[in-house]
Structures are given as C-alpha cells and as structure tokens.
C-alpha cells in the first residue's frame, strides 16, 4: 500500500468514530440480512457476518484515522475480485466455460453491464429499443435495474462512480499500487482526452451498426468476466484485442505508471461520468490559503485530475473520481472533500462525513452480494 502522510485534521476520537459508524452499521445490517437474520445456514451466516464486519470496520477506520483512500481501495479491490469470481463460477457451473454461445445471445441471457449505457443512448432515441441481448427486467444484472443504479449513482457521485461504484475499477486501481515508485512519470496530457474520443467513436459505431461496439470489440474486462465463444477469425480477433488491452491497460501500464490507465485512457463511461461531475453536489476543493504548493497531490492522483495549474487556480478538473488519494496525501489539509456552493476551506469535516456516508453506503450495498457469495464458496471449500 502507498505510504501516505497522516491527515490529523480529519481524525476523530474512538467514541465519535463509533457514532458516525452507527448509521452505516444499521443500514448494512438491514440490507445484508433482510432485517431478519437467519442462522440456519452456517456458511451463509458466517459469510454475511464477515462481509458485514469488513465494510463496517473499514468505514470506522476511515473516520478514526482520517484516511479515505487507504480503506476505500480495500473494499474496491475486493469488490472487483469477488464479482469476477462470482460471475466466472456461475458461468462455469451453467455453461462449463467463461464464454457465451450464440444461443445465449439469441435467448437474451447476457448480463447487462453499465459500460453498455453510452452506446445504447442513440439507438434508444432513434429506434426506441435497446441494442443488447439481455433481459429488461428479470434475472441477474437485468437492464432496468443496472440503468437505475448507474443513473442515480452518477447523478449523486459524478465521476466518483469510478472510484466508489464501478465493479471493474478495482482491477487497475489495485495494479496501480503494486510499486512504491512509478517507472514512467511524464505522460503526455493529451491522452486524458482519449476516453471522450472513444465515447464519440463507440456511440457512433454502435448507433450505425446496432452493435454495442465497445463490448463486442474492445472491453478489456471481458478477460475477467465473460466473452464471445471463439469460433471464427472475427471472434478470435476480438479475443486478442481484449486480452491485449487487459494486459496492457489494466496490468502493465498501471504497474509502471501508478495511474489508473484503463479508466483514464479508454473507458467511455468514465467520459460520461466526467460530464456528470458538473451536476453532482460533491467535489474536491483546494483551500489556496492552506496550500503550500508541494504538489504531492498532483503526484499521487491516479486519474490525471490535478496539475500544477489546477492547484494554482484552486480548481480540480472534471476527471476527478473523488478517490481521496490527494486528500490523504496532503499534509496541510488544503485539498479536501467539499460541497458545491460552500467556499473552499470551510465545512471540511461536514462535507467529508456526508460524502463518505453517501459513497461508502453505495459501495457497501452494491458489493455485498458478490462478497457474500464469494465468501460462501470459500467457506464451503474450507469446511
């Protein structure tokens, strides 16, 4: 893990931290147990207990230590790993393989993922239909519920969805933390606009070809979820592309640069979420009076959201995913969570507490299912 500086301004006492954790404790208890704890199944009960303790201990530590990113990333990575594990396990159980067949496409059995959303907007507007072989309302990851979840999350968190909600982000976030120092430091700023170019191209190509082109041809995360059965030169080419992109953008480049390169250089949904950063009330603010321009925050930012010019202007760019790494790194408490309308440097604690509750609650509940399912499988394996 990164060696971040202490942030004494955000630390709370033990009692206060427990108090702040209480609402999270109660709400996650309600969601994980359905309000009626059932101890008849030992493996299920143990899995729920471990998941419950995990999320609440992490949330407690965020308040007690004053550090955000250090604990956020633990749950974020666990979410990514457990989701892949759960998906792959279910697919192998049903189909005996990670790939889906033509029959699965014809029967509209493909689980929907929020990355499809940018590509379905134009076709939905013109053809009044969804260009995805999934289920509208029934079953796991149906289209309606995924659209509702993403829409609300992006409205509330903006690009914070990329650090608190996206079940793929944990992969490149995790790999970006493997080294203590980056091997590659100076990266041309022009590349941070690539997700917008990708968004433009996939939205156009999807509308014209009626195929979700990012999913069909590019998405690197097919390497850890599911992909089209390789039965032709075309499907083999697609497999080659996504495996290469996973290796390059999700593993190698994040390790070398300590940046989230897949999210910053490719993901078209990240581009959409950046735009929604304009409407969310939560933001990162820079208190220019407290800032000593050490630029540690610029160095640690994994999303290219900060630059020396930003800091001097006291503004954070639309690429900010509110991960909290800069906040944790700042020794002067100059860069902090804020609420739009409230001047920088004021109501820091209040803004952080409110943002943390909203974002962590979303992540905790969204990830609970896959964490519990994975734990159940592991417990069954052990016992």
């Amino acid at each position: 893990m990164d060696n971040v500086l202490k942030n004494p301004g955000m630390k709370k006492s033990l009692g206060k931290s427990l108090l702040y954790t209480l609402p999270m404790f109660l709400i996650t208890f309600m969601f994980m147990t359905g309000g009626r704890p059932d101890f008849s199944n030992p493996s299920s009960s143990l899995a729920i207990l471990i998941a419950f303790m995990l999320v609440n201990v992490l949330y407690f530590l965020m308040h007690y230590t004053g550090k955000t990113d250090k604990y956020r990333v633990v749950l974020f990575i666990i979410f990514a790993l457990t989701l892949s594990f759960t998906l792959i396990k279910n697919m192998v159980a049903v189909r005996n393989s990670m790939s889906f067949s033509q029959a699965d496409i014809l029967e509209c059995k493909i689980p929907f993922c929020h990355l499809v959303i940018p590509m379905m907007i134009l076709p939905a507007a013109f053809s009044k239909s969804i260009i995805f072989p999934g289920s509208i309302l029934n079953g796991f990851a149906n289209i309606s519920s995924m659209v509702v979840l993403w829409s609300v999350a992006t409205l509330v968190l903006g690009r914070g969805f990329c650090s608190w909600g996206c079940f793929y982000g944990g992969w490149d976030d995790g790999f970006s933390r493997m080294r203590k120092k980056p091997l590659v430091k100076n990266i041309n700023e022009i590349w941070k606009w690539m997700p917008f170019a990708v968004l433009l191209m996939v939205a156009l190509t999807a509308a014209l070809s009626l195929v979700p082109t990012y999913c069909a041809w590019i998405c690197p995360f097919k390497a850890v979820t599911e992909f089209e059965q390789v039965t032709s030169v075309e499907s083999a080419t697609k497999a080659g592309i996504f495996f290469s992109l996973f290796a390059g953008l999700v593993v190698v480049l994040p390790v070398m640069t300590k940046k989230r390169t897949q999210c910053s250089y490719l993901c078209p949904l990240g581009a959409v979420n950046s735009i929604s950063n304009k409407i969310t009330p939560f933001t990162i603010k820079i208190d220019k009076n407290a800032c000593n321009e050490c630029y540690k925050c610029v160095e640690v930012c994994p999303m290219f959201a900060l630059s020396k010019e930003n800091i001097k202007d006291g503004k954070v760019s639309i690429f900010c995913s509110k991960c909290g790494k800069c906040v944790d790194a700042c020794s002067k408490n100059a860069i902090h969570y804020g609420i739009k309308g409230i001047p920088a440097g004021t109501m820091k604690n209040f803004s952080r507490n409110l943002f943390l509750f909203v974002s962590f609650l979303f992540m905790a509940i969204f990830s609970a299912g896959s964490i519990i399912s994975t734990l159940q499988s592991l417990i069954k394996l052990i016992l």
Partner: protein
Amino acid sequence: MTDALILGLSSGSACLATCGMVMFPYLMSGSSGVRRITIDLSVFLITRLIAYFILATLAWYFGQAFFSDPLIRNIVPGILYIVFAVMLVWYSIDKSRNPVCPAKIAKTVNNRRLVPVFLGIVNSFGFCPALFIILTKSATQGTIVQSYLAFLAFFIGSSLWFLPLPLAGKIRKREAIMTIGLLATGLAGIIFMIKGLTNLIGGIING
C-alpha cells in the same frame, strides 16, 4: 456507407482543427450578419460537395480500370487502407505536423464573393489521409452510384463539424474539443486498419 460516415465525422474535426480557424475569418470578413455568414457557409459546403462528386467519379473510373481483377480488388485496397490508416493515426497524434491550412492562400483572391468557392475547392482537394481512404473506398465500389454515396456519407460526416463555425468564438473549451476530435481521427484510422487487414486476409485466403 457507415464507415464513410464515421470517417467523415471523425476526420472532419481534424480538418476543422487545421482549417476552420483560418477559414472562419475569411468567411466572416466583410460579412453583414447571420444571412451573409449562412450564404457563405452554404456556398463553401456546396463547392465541397461538387468537388467530392468529381473526385468520386474519377476514383470510380480509376478503380474500374485498375481493380477489375477480383484478387487485386481485395489485396491492393487492403494494403492501401492499412497505409493510409497508419498515416491517419500519425496525422492525429503528430505534434510536429504543420497545422497551417492551405486556405490561407485565399488572401490572394480579390473578389470577396469567390472566397467561399475558393475555400471549398482548396479544402476538398487538400489531400489528407482521410481523403486517401475515401478515394480508395470509392475506387472499389461496384457501381458509380455507390461511389457517390460513399463520398456523400463522408461529406455529411465532415460537414457537420463546419456548421457551428459561426459560433466558434463563443464555444468554450475549443481546444479540448479539437483534441478529442484529433484523437477520434486516430481511432477512425485504427478502424480502417482493421478493415484493410480483413480485406487483405480475405484476398489472400480467397486468392
């Protein structure tokens, strides 16, 4: 014609990035309001359209003459697509590329009313990698109508970028939009590279 439209939409931004900010003052000079700007822009676009139809005709006849053999019809365009696509990708990311538009030569035109016509001709025949790609596509079409349709799709895609030109001064984040457009051009180049490879492999397998 989907790929022609996409090529036009993505490369039109690169065209605008180099030429737009030069053309606009000429289009605006001596103008007396929205009506004059609209007429100038319309004349410019119509001239481009006519020039493209001429190019489509020439390209198709060239294709008929040299790409009559089915094997050559796949392999040669396949190679050309790959070469021009690489040029297009390089064009989009090359920092040392000269951004000066040939439209600057419009300074030498005395008659104010001929400026949009002249700019339309210069812009259409300013051979760039995107135009090479669409010429290659046009040359491989089965009928001359298909060749015209390809150029029409390319024209429509690229012209959309010129339409907001009169509002250019008011658009914030112009630089970011231009950067995105240039990167999209590079991505379009990659799409055509894959198309070229598919043609080439198909030609080799069938040959």
